[in-house]
Structure formats: C-alpha cells, structure tokens
C-alpha cells in the first residue's frame, strides 16, 4: 500500500466539510441566481437534497471494497485494459479539477485583492504550499484541517450573524416564480460543484479507520457544507438581490462588503477571503493528492512522491491556459462542467458498482485475482 497513514472518522467528516465549501462558497451563488433568479436558494436546497443520495451511493460503492481505493478496484473489476482506461479518466478528472480550482484562486486574487500581480505567481506560490502538504501525506493534511476548522466556522458565524440587519425580505418575492424546470436547472450547479466532485473521497476512503462509520462521517460533513451553501445563497438573495448576485463572479465577497455594525465594524470582507483560502486549500490538496495517488496506483509505483513536482508543473501549466477569460469560465461552469462531472462522478462509478455486483465477489474475493 502506497499510503500508510490512517485518519479517523471525525477528520474525514471535517475534510468533507471543507472540501464541499471550498470554491463552491464563492462561485455557486452566482450560478444559482443566474439560472433560477430569486428562487436560487430553492435550487440550492434541491441540489443539497439530491447530493445526499449520491453520497449514499458513494458509500455503498466504497464499502464494498473497504481496503481499496477507487482506482485500484476499478482495475480489478473491469480488467486490465478497460480498468486502466477508466482509471485514467478518473485521474484526468482529479488533475483537471485541481487545475480549475487553482485557477479560481488566481482569478479571485487578480480580480479583487491584487489586480496588478501576474496570475502565474499567485498559482506558483499556492502550489508550493500544496506540494508540501501532499508530500507530508494524508495524516498531516487531516490534522491541519482539524486545526483550521474552528477558524472557518467562527468566520462563517460572524459573516452570517452580522448580515442579519441587512436582510430585506421583499427581495425574494415572488417566490417560485421561475417554475420547476428552472429550479432544477439551477440545482445542477450545486450538484456538480461540490457533490459530484466528492468522488475524490473514494480515493481516501480506505485510509479512514472504523469502516462502518465512514459513510455517516462523509454525509455529515457534506450536509453541513450544503447547509452553509444554502445559507450563503439565501443571504446573497436577501441582501444583494438576485440580479446583483448573478452579475458578480464572486458574490459572497461583495456580500461581506455590506457588513456594517454601528459605525465601527465595517469593511471586513477579507474574512470571506480567509474562509475561502482555507477551504480551497484543502480542496486543492485533496484533489492533487487523489490524482497523484491514483496515477501511482495505476502505474504500480512504489511511492507517489516522485510525481509531485512533475504533476505540479503540469497543473500550473493547465491552470494558466485553461480559461482565456472569465466569460469562458462562466459558460463552461454552467453548461459543460455539470455533464463532465456527471460522467466521472456518477456514470463511471455506477459502471464500477454494476461490475462489482455482477462479479458478486464483494470485498473478500476482490483481494484475490481479478474476475476478468
């Protein structure tokens, strides 16, 4: 086994929570309101409700093979060649996801915080931290997530509580104006941006102690993350209004600018930036870690560590060329990404699950020879 570390169920659910907040918390409100207008918050609730059965499915798949990662049992169940091809599809999804998430950070910093800094240098500095984290291994990542969780929760609490005075209820009226179809269309963005990407967690599933508590831990983390997403979307609609939210690429940052308590507590929008950096760091570390581990297992290497710098360089290059401009990103994220994520996050795991049912070997026999 390449990774020797073990994490516990609590750390697993913290990682799920941070992963489902990272990048989604800033991007999703805009996509939701652009599709479903003032009913964007209903779309968010629909998306979270659809995400929970998906996680139950991941748990069903992961617990059939409690000692193997997604890429390992894909290869065992589907045979050598098909397994390798499907494994490569998973690997490219994870690597591309890390490049896209990295690009989100770069876009955020260069449009809002430091407009004159070249985007490559932002990516480079963040990638150094990511490479160090991945080099130190899963246990270190999980423990640092435990350390940073209270900060994220505290800042989120401040953000939500201080915005209460700014709420104007009439901004959500008329409720349910857009109809069922539009609400479902809006919910695609919540389903795809945190939930279908949680397929990454099937790569670290076997390293969580106590196999029977894994599924509950993952669903708990994702449910809390989903609740926060719903709350932030509601606040965006209540405070900014749906048209203003949908026009911004990073509406929650603009949302935090509205905080004004008395005359003394204002301009604390950097709190949101801190939440976003912490959560996105863990999302990026996990995606990058999963892609390296997957590649090392596909190619039967002794360790994934020799791959860190080459893959970091590829991620850096992909993250620079990936979007020519921000409009391309918005169209891609709303029209193409849900379907790509649906393929690798649901259809391919469904195929693997079906193969696992047909071979009916379950977890005990899958350790012996592959059936195909």
């Amino acid at each position, binding site marked *: 086994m390449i990774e020797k570390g073990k994490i516990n169920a609590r750390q697993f659910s913290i990682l799920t929570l941070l992963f489902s907040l990272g990048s989604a918390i800033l991007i999703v409100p805009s996509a939701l309101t652009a599709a479903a207008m003032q009913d964007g918050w209903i779309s968010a609730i629909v998306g979270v409700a659809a995400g929970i059965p998906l996680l139950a499915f991941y748990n069903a798949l992961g617990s059939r093979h409690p000692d193997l990662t997604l890429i390992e049992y894909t290869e065992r169940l589907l045979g050598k060649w098909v397994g390798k091809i499907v494994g490569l599809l998973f690997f490219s999804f994870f690597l591309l996801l890390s490049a896209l998430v990295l690009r989100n950070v770069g876009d955020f910093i260069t449009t809002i915080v430091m407009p004159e800094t070249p985007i490559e240098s932002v990516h480079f500095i963040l990638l150094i931290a990511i490479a160090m984290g991945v080099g130190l291994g899963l246990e270190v990542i999980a423990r640092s997530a435990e350390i940073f969780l209270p900060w994220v929760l505290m800042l989120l609490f401040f953000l939500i509580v201080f915005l209460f005075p700014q709420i104007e209820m009439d901004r959500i009226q008329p409720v349910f104006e857009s109809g069922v179809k539009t609400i479902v269309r809006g919910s695609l963005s919540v389903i795809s941006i945190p939930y279908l990407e949680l397929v990454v967690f099937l790569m670290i599933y076997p390293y969580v102690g106590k196999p029977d508590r894994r599924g509950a831990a993952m669903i708990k983390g994702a449910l809390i993350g989903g609740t926060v997403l719903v709350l932030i979307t509601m606040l965006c609609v209540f405070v900014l209004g749906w048209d203003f939210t949908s026009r911004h690429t990073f509406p929650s940052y603009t949302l935090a600018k509205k905080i004004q308590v008395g005359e003394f507590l204002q301009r604390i929008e950097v709190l949101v930036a801190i939440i976003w950096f912490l959560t996105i760091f863990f999302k990026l570390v996990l995606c990058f870690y999963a892609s390296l581990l997957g590649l090392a297992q596909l190619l*039967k290497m*002794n360790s994934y560590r020799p791959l860190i*710098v080459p893959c970091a360089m590829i991620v850096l*290059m992909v993250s620079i060329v990936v979007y020519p401009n921000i409009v391309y990103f918005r169209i891609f994220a709303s029209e193409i990404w849900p*379907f790509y994520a649906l393929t690798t996050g649901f259809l391919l795991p469904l195929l693997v699950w079906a193969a696992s049912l047909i071979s009916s070997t379950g977890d005990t026999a899958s350790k012996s020879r592959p059936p195909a």
Partner: protein
Amino acid sequence: MVWIVLAAAACVVRFEYVRLYRRKQFKDLSISACLLGFAATLFILRSAHVPIPDPLDWIGAVYKPASKFILSALS
C-alpha cells in the same frame, strides 16, 4: 516564469532522482522523468509563444450536444 520552473525541475533531478537511482527504483524514476520532461517541454514551448491546447475545449466538444439537449429541455 519558465526559469523558475526549470530551476525547480533541476532541483528534482539533482536531489530526488539521485536518491531514487541509489535505491534502484528505476520504474518510479523513469515515469517521473517522462512527466517532468513533458511538463518542462510545455513551459519551454509557452515561453516561445507556441499556443498550448486547452483541454477544456476538448471536453466542451465532447459534451456540447448532450448539454444543449438537456439544458433546452430544462428551460
């Protein structure tokens, strides 16, 4: 940018690969070296202003028909 990246690659060759070579892990060494060479080539090409293909264009080309069909059914 290309110089920083190439310097990082040189550090990997100097420290990591020498260690892998001594431990006789030739498989890890060769896979990693291939990827490193590929990545370094990408950066050198970019610094020479050769357009690097965007993988999202390929994904977009694959999923465009399905996306159009489903999104038009939902609007």
